[in-house]
């Protein structure tokens, strides 16, 4: 099932020192948990539905009550791209943005980079585990590492 004819080589994480984020009161609990290497998602405390990015109201039941459960930190690749230039510098740099369905948070996805395998070996369905990357201003970003038992 070779999807790729190009041999890209190892998928790398984009350097954390070029990544900036900002937060607001709705999203900050997610990022504060990430600083502690704890993966969470915004869950409606009323109906239980998950949502990311976090928003003030539950789109299912309009409740503002939220919880931030600790998730297992694993997931499955839903889709991805293979890119070969560092967007900050234009230099050759193989990275794989992945959209990940997160275990324990049905319906919520995260987008990050995947590492731990060659880019051409990534598949939809690849199992992943969160990999924490230090980024600017003391924040921590959830990226992903491919698990071999996919």
């Amino acid at each position, binding site marked *: 099932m070779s999807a790729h004819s190009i041999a890209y080589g190892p998928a790398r994480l984009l350097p954390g020192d070029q990544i900036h984020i900002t937060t607001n009161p709705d*999203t900050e609990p997610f990022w504060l948990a990430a600083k502690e290497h704890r993966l969470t998602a915004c869950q409606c405390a009323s109906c239980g539905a998950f949502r990311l990015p976090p928003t003030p109201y539950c789109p299912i039941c309009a409740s503002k009550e939220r919880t931030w459960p600790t998730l297992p930190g694993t997931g499955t690749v839903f889709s991805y791209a293979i890119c070969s230039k560092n*967007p900050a510098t234009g230099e050759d740099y193989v990275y794989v943005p992945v959209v990940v369905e997160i275990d324990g948070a049905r319906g919520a996805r995260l987008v990050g980079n995947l590492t731990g395998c060659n880019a051409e070996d990534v598949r939809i369905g690849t199992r992943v585990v969160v990999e924490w990357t230090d980024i600017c201003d003391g924040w921590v970003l959830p990226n992903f590492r491919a698990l071999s038992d996919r």
Partner: protein
Amino acid sequence: MTWAHQDKCAIVGIGATDYYVRGKSWPRTINDMAGEAILKACEDAGISVKDIDGFAYYGGASAGYVDKFDSGSLMETLGMPHISFTATLTSGGGGVAGAVGLATAGLMNEDCTYAVTVMAVQQTPSARLGDIFGRMKPDPENSFLQPSGLIGPGHLMSVLARRHMHLYGSTEDALAEIVMASRTHALNRPKAIRRTPLSKEDYLASVMLADPLRRLDFCLETDGAIAVITTTADRARDCRQKPAYIHGCVHGASRKWGRAFGWMNMPDPEFSSSGHQFLAERVWAQTGLAAKDMDVALIYDHFSSMVLAQLEDYGFCERGEGNDYVLAGKTRYDPASRGGVNGGIPVNTHGGNLSEAYIIGMTHVVEAVEQVRGTAINQVADCEFALATGGPAPIPVSSLVLRSA
């Protein structure tokens, strides 16, 4: 249910500047180019620019996302004595077809009598559309997307294309065919930016920018301006050209599409769609027509993969069958018969955003008008109905069906 305002308004004037490769329009200014397009559209319609009393924009009245239109400034530039309707659809190029519907709203509400929809693009080195998301300052929402390095529209689109390939087995061969068909349609067009023949080998040699999308799957980067003038059917009959009646026009999207590739949480099958299915249902209900009734389809092709997805969303073929539909040559125009190939409906007879020019979708509206007038360069015989669509993007997307007079 049939739309109450069906055929009650018409596009009566179209005007365009030359199309320039990105950045080459300098030292012209945005208002210089917008003004030329508007004046040419007025001349085409046979009205004075001073008759214009409405502005119906899209994309938040941005000029190619990198500059802003201001109705006051355009009035002072062109001398309209008063304006009684000035409104815009939100978000980006998804609204291009729907801006004509916005004009219709102003006309049917008797706010204005002649409404202009205009887009002008100028991409100086510090204002390139392809960098638009990358240049955005981090905000709390995009902080969940940008750190992944999905910074260009093509990056984002490639993730959707990958899912389409996974679910339906669609191939790079289909993307190649979309690009090659577009190029073939552009060969005889004097204003087209890419008008040299393109082989499959040329396509495959194109650099992979965001696997599975190559450079040639990305649309052109163009400067220029286009304006269209919409008025009521009774006024249209006194204009210079044959009216292009607005038979149906819709904008919006379902929440399952919503923020789309700015969010990446769409369920299947919406994830790998173009987000147009909700609109397709609306515009076909509004007109009582279906894809098979179109004589030509002008499908927003900022990326080749989004042609595939729109063909499925509008029902030119079943979901998941876009690959085979395209590979059967069904998007091609046959100059000999002045019709489709292999039972298909010609798509992007003007060469589209991939080969002719990318003025945020306005070339599709212009081609739809020329086709129903009967004056297109690659004219479809007896063209009665033309579909034009807005770019798959966060809500709104939009679509327009024009009918010949």
